[in-house]
């Protein structure tokens, strides 16, 4: 934290910060409209596909009796994975009193909310009878990992929304009191309601700090649980490739890789689009790059465990699975994910140059794509090779390939996630203004001052 500034200086600085950080709210141009149009159009196409699926049954997908979980489940795991970054950045790093990550917290929470919300929607989409969703609550059996998953995913969503909303309240009050005239009046009305009559006195701040601290601690077990339990959906079965004890930490480590990459991409988008170069500084990208290297190394360690140990023994069923990954039909995808998702990024990001905003963002795009493909090869190859031979069924039962409807619906999930993030970014500042101002040495009293 910088030392306290004089009131005059503070007011001037605060005006500038508020102006910069509300640019995303104010900014409305052709590009924004075009972006919304693209998102809504593709999301709409996906919803149309979903309608067909509900009418005709899950048979419109490439899934059949042997590969009965396909791209939807892989996509579900991916979205649960990226949502975990919210817990790492806005809770774990905060509690460790790491300062540089503060401006990134809200971006991480955006990813968390969008990811976990879409994970919930995708799982309903994967059900054969979505109309019976309520059975999960009416007849829920606590012995089933699905019930654990439903419990922790909804809890994580709730805590993430609160962790997003609580630090937002002072910001909303600030915009309500000091916002520029160029903010649309309907938005100002929303801020007024959502600010809950915030006055900005010391007692209120104390309450917010207190509540946030509780939430940050609460989200640690919940955050670890969501991805551990998601991994148990696989690890609780007897199938080779899934029947392993390291799936929990393996998934958690992989989740941090995917989530960190998503946050870097989003930071870069905001930096360029909303001209926030002074806020998402090179330093933040540098640290995020280092964080990404670190979580990649942890994930690499788990990957070596996951593949090397069974590959040394080559038990019958495991051997079929591993040969399929290493040299068989999934080999190109497997080696692509290992190379572009782990090994090359780790190597490149050791150099300072590749931790600069643009190179790091490009690396992150590759890492994120590899993360998605990685989930695909966690789910599908195992299902293609059950213990007993696959016989007396048509050929398309034996190998899975997603249909266009499946791809449309998956595209919908991406568009819907981006839509949630976009709406959050267009509605609310992408960086916590009051926290940032405080770190720049602006007194809280100045924050509560109405606009002259």
């Amino acid at each position: 934290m910088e030392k306290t500034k004089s009131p005059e200086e503070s007011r001037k600085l605060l005006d500038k910060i508020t102006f910069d950080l509300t640019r995303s709210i104010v900014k409305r141009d052709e590009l924004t409209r075009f972006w919304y149009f693209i998102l809504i159009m593709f999301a709409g196409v996906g919803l149309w596909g979903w309608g067909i699926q509900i009418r005709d049954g899950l048979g419109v997908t490439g899934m059949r009796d042997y590969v009965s979980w396909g791209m939807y489940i892989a996509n579900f795991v991916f979205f649960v994975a990226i949502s975990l970054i919210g817990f790492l950045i806005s809770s774990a790093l905060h509690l460790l009193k790491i300062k540089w990550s503060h401006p990134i917290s809200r971006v991480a929470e955006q990813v968390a909310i969008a990811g976990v919300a879409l994970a919930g929607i995708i799982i309903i989409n994967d059900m054969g009878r979505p109309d019976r969703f309520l059975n999960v609550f009416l007849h829920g059996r606590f012995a089933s990992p699905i019930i654990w998953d439903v419990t922790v995913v909804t809890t994580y969503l709730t805590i993430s929304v609160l962790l997003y909303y609580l630090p937002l309240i002072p910001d909303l009050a600030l915009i309500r009191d000091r916002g520029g005239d160029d903010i649309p009046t309907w938005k100002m009305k929303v801020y007024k309601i959502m600010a809950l009559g915030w006055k900005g006195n010391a007692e209120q701040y104390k309450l917010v700090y207190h509540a946030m601290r509780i939430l940050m601690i609460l989200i640690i077990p919940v955050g670890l649980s969501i991805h551990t339990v998601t991994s148990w959906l696989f690890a609780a079965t007897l199938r080779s490739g899934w029947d392993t004890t390291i799936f929990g930490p393996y998934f958690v480590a992989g989740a941090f890789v995917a989530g960190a990459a998503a946050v870097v991409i989003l930071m870069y988008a905001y930096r360029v689009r909303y001209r926030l170069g002074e806020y998402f500084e090179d330093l933040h990208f540098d640290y995020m790059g280092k964080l990404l290297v670190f979580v990649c190394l942890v994930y690499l360690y788990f990957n070596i465990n996951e593949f090397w140990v069974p590959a040394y023994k080559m038990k019958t069923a495991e051997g079929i699975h591993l040969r399929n990954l290493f040299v068989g039909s999934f080999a190109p995808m497997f080696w692509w994910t290992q190379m572009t998702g782990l090994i090359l990024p780790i190597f490149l990001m050791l150099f300072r140059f590749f931790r600069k905003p643009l190179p790091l963002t490009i690396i992150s795009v590759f890492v994120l794509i590899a993360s998605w493909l990685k989930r695909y090869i966690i789910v599908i190859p195992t299902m293609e090779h059950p213990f007993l031979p696959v016989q007396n069924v048509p050929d398309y039962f034996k190998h899975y390939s997603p249909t266009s409807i499946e791809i449309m619906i998956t595209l919908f999930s991406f568009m819907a996630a981006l839509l949630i993030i976009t709406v959050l970014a267009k509605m609310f500042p992408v960086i916590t203004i009051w926290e940032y101002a405080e770190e720049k040495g602006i007194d809280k009293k100045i924050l509560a001052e109405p606009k002259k």
Partner: protein
Amino acid sequence: MENKSRRNFVKKLGVSVGAAGLVGGSSLLSSCTQVETASGDTIKLLTSSGELVEVNKAQLKPADMPNLTEQQKRGRKGLPGRKFVMVIDLSKCRNARECMKGCQKHHQLRPEQHHINVLQMQDAEDTAPYYMPKPCQHCDNPPCTKVCPVNATFKREDGIVLIDNERCIGCRFCIAACPYSARVFNWFEPRDAEKYEGVTYNIEANVPQKKGTISKCLFSADRLRDGKLPTCVSSCPNGVYWFGDQNEDAVTNGTTHETVSFSKLVRDNAAYTLMPELGTKPRVYYLPPKDRAFPFQGEIEDHHS
């Protein structure tokens, strides 16, 4: 066997004055349902084996049938005091596939859906290939019922693992959990969906099948309630199947109708269960494919390409 019982049934139909006679046989009580047709005078009736028969409408009166809730209740409970067990003699199986056909008919399955599937097996490169009928193993430690989030699949007192497709949400976790690939899913509208529309669901035969839900072998629990052998067992022309009650220590051969001691049969013939190392404790026992009096036809299918 199947044909004979059908003839009996039609004969019975002819002599009965009222529908009471028709449904009087307890065998039909549970699964006989009315399906309206366009013609005013006759009506089509669906028998438990999936046959459609035509009867004069005037001869009908409402059957005394348990409603859905009662059926579900007794379907969950099972047959008290029984412990069903199946023994499959692999030395007898010559891939006639009558079991598969009978089963698909009984449970209204599409051609690619198998409650029982006759697999071509070869344990090692130098060993002889053989045919292995594979129904649901009705495990005593079933991995499938454990993972079901809504208790739609469950283990009954009498050892049968059953499905309630009125409750199933179609998450397919049970398919992932089953190491024997015993479960199938209704990816589309089931076979003959229009024909069976409005027919009360029979949980013990899992018919009519429903779109978006799971199905699998049920040991023909509806037939067991009527004191009959499962469809596959009585369809087999080669004497492959033995079925019975472990509590009584007696199993009956579906073809020869010979009844023997279960414990002696499995002991004398070195019976085994599939993948015992998984700890699922199957209720289906296999007798080894030794001394087969017929050759293995055709190529063994390579499933791990």
